[in-house]
């Protein structure tokens, strides 16, 4: 299958793999937490307290075969439903979605993040399919623990980025308390993916301004809010000036709002430069070099030209957007559907090249020799 006028290899920045029953993860949990969770009836994944889904499952309906393996839990099913038909040369596995790292007991959260990383390496990333890569999941609520986890696994050739899924401290990510995480990511030249949503479980974090939403409709619609906040914070507090090779990857936030944010930040930084003379570049320039944003959920305009007009308000945005499917979740975007909505000259960048230059790939990869990054 060709991807809507683009028939090259595709990099999928956001694929979800899951361990299924808790007993599959328990062997990877370090003491004392293994005993804690084994003796408890609590869920390891607080997302199971999520809003009830009107479709009864968060998997795409046509991927579910009653009696068959659950999409996301099974490698062969993923290969047949995603990797093979859509020519996915590289897929980044981001758990389901790693909400375990957002438990209110921050030490347990850090232990579960480590367990998930080891489970992913042991059961998915070591099976010999060179299309599969992973993210180092960290609990952002304990930044020094998170930095240690990045340093524990940062050199692993199958781990190409860091993943954070919650703002459990209720502080935007530019706050100096998070700097150990950026420092460790910078040491290993790893981008940090932000996949919001687990903020719902913490006592401090808040997904949306005005209070947490009450329904899935509100939840998904408002996911850009924390993305705007954390980008603004990281730029304002000089994260990219202190660690120029740190990249933020926004997952599942949509992307049509990005030009507005870039222009507004430019205006306010020009007005209020005195607050942050350590910020060297215009925010719009920093966004082009240090921020990347994934396509899912693809935001369909009434006419494709409207989408391009909207995005073109930020010159160079075709270098910022990267394809993601969100497999196997209910609102998956197929690669061919997404590619065809962008101008032909953008497609290779969005479907492959931008991600190739953003994540830290091993020196040689199955999908060809990675080119050097330009950041």
């Amino acid at each position, binding site marked *: 299958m060709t991807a809507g006028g683009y028939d090259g290899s595709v990099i999928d920045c956001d694929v979800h793999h899951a361990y299924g029953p808790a007993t599959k993860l328990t062997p990877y949990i370090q003491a004392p937490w293994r005993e804690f969770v084994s003796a408890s009836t609590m869920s390891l994944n607080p997302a199971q307290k999520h809003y009830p889904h009107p479709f009864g499952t968060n998997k795409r309906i046509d991927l579910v075969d009653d009696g068959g393996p659950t999409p996301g839990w099974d490698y062969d099913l993923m290969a047949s439903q995603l990797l093979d038909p859509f020519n996915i040369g590289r897929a980044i596995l981001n758990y389901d979605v790693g909400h375990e790292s957002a438990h209110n007991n921050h030490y347990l959260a850090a232990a579960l993040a480590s367990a998930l990383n080891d489970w992913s390496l042991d059961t998915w990333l070591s099976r010999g399919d060179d299309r599969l890569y992973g993210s180092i999941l960290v609990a952002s609520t304990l930044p020094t623990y998170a930095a240690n986890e990045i340093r524990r696994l940062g050199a692993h050739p199958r781990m190409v980025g860091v993943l954070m899924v919650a703002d459990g401290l209720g502080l935007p990510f530019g706050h*100096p308390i998070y700097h150990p995480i950026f420092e460790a990511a910078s040491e290993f030249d790893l981008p940090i993916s932000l996949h919001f949503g687990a903020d719902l479980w913490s006592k401090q974090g808040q997904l949306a301004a005005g209070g947490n939403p009450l329904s899935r409709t509100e939840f998904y619609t408002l996911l850009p809010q924390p993305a705007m906040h954390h980008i603004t914070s990281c730029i304002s*507090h*000089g*994260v990219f*000036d*202190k660690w120029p090779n740190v990249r933020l990857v926004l997952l599942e936030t949509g992307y049509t709002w990005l030009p507005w944010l870039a222009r507004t930040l430019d205006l306010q930084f*020009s*007005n*209020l*430069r*005195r607050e*942050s*003379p*350590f910020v060297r570049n*215009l925010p719009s320039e920093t966004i082009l070099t240090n921020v990347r944003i994934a396509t899912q959920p693809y935001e369909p305009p009434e006419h494709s030209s409207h989408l391009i007009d909207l995005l073109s308000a930020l010159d160079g945005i075709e270098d910022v957007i990267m394809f993601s499917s969100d497999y196997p979740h209910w609102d998956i975007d197929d690669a061919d559907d997404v590619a065809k909505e962008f101008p032909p000259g953008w497609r290779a960048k969005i479907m492959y090249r931008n991600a190739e230059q953003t994540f830290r790939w091993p020196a040689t990869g199955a999908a060809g020799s990675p080119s050097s990054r330009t950041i």
Partner: protein
Amino acid sequence: MARDWCGGITLLKNDMSGASVDVGSSDEFMDRIFRIVAIDGKEFGVLRWGEAVYVVRNICPHHFSPVCRGLVRESAQSEAPGTIVLQDSPIVICPNHRWEFRLPSGFAVRSRHSIKTYPARIQEGRVLVDFGARARQA
């Protein structure tokens, strides 16, 4: 709110002789407050900063706003996130779009633009400005 400028009170002529123009007694220029003087119908801002004195054309290169009616502050610099160091040199912040210009160079902090500057000094209690040929072009 205290203003960082006062002006419109001094009307002078440049005799184009090339000699310095006496724009007033230094006592008339409050420290760190722009005073706007008009010479041959053109406005200039005169700023006393301690023992130094700076003179600029009162036009921002951005939208030709009266830049000298903006705020005057110490220059803010930084070598690391979270740190701000104030330096004993002035900047003027245009009131219209907040462009910042360093004195005495006149160069903008964040762009390649600049405001026009003129050599000035305090001599025997008088503020003397060398407009030279530039004033005719201003």
